[in-house]
């Protein structure tokens, strides 16, 4: 299939738009923002929970019934089994908060571990129904003869 151009001459092709003027700065900006998001150490700001100190300090901002997340370490010796759930004291090292968790805690829940609980203030007790254990990033082989039994 051929279409012969006439003697009127071939019209010139319209110039192709050159996008480099847009693409190069845009990609550059994207790399800068991306790098800032990846390595800008913004992570620490982005885990949304209140430490026990913050929670006690701002108790008036979170009146009874307003849910929020609370993080703290389970104070050794404070765990107490209740008919429905468990009670313990969470602390960030300076302030301690009594927590009543109203369902079964996860298996890894134990003394000295970091937990995040979600719930509301009821008076001075934090009543939670969601608990997440903050898993640390360490994987260790058990030392000889010190194997901790885990039921699956």
């Amino acid at each position, binding site marked *: 299939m051929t279409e012969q151009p006439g003697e009127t001459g071939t019209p010139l092709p319209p110039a192709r738009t050159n996008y480099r003027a847009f693409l190069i700065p845009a990609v550059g900006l994207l790399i800068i923002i991306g790098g800032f998001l990846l390595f800008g150490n913004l992570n620490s700001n982005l885990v949304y929970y209140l430490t026990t100190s913050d929670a006690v300090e701002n108790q008036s901002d979170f009146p009874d019934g307003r849910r929020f997340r609370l993080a703290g370490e389970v104070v050794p010796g404070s765990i107490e089994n209740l008919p429905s759930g468990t009670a313990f004291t969470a602390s960030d090292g300076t302030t301690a908060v009594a927590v009543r968790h109203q369902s079964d805690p996860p298996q*890894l829940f134990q003394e000295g571990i970091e937990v995040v609980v979600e719930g509301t203030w009821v008076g001075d007790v934090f009543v939670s129904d969601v608990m997440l254990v903050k898993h640390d990033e360490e994987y260790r082989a058990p030392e000889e003869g010190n194997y901790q039994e885990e039921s699956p």
Partner: protein
Amino acid sequence: MTTDSETSTDPQAGHDGSGRTSTPVRKLDGIAVAGIVLAIVVAMTVPADKLQGDVQRLMYVHVPSAWVAFLAFGVTALSSIAWLRTHKVTWDTTAAASAFVGVFFTGTALASGMIWGKPTWGVFWTWDARLVSTALLFVIYLGYLALRRATPDPIDRARRSAIMGIIAALQVAVVYKSVDWWVTLHQQSSRNSIDPALRLSLWVSVLAFTIVYIGLTSRRRALLEAEESLRLRGLRGSAVAGDAISKPNLEARSDG
């Protein structure tokens, strides 16, 4: 000027046109099986994590699955770019095969992660960035495969899915990094905080899974290319579109 390359299959591809698998692909199967066996042996002999116990051995399925899934989607994106530049059929089939295998491993990573999550976090599912992002990854690439199925014309399909393969990778990058941005319980990368014996074992299984990925992808690709050559063979000497319309024959019906 001929454009044969667009529809003819690449002679270098891992099949001989008859749909039979070629020797390199079969050799790869052997290596993959050996790798998996080795990975299982190593994974079951190294000590388990002190805190978690045997449950932690799920890591040797979970982490390599996730790694392979990301690898697969990366390959899809790069092949998509290559297709847009060269229009070679083999890039399109690579992208399709890789996405297909990637979806499978995303599923594996999700399932193993949920099984692992129950004893460690106490829940199968939590609104965690890594879980959510992986589930989304799964859905995005199911969409990619759906787009491929919905487009009948091979060149049109290659073009549309190449564009989709690139956009999806863009989104995957964002969704994937959200693990560092969003409230999370999933650990960050544990490369530096892992026991050497466990780390070795993890590397063995990552390697084994990667070989399995290569094997599955090349098989899938060979299948797609065999289908394509079959289609082309059927095409030669077949009727043109207009032949499907024949002379109306109202008489025949009214007589009956």
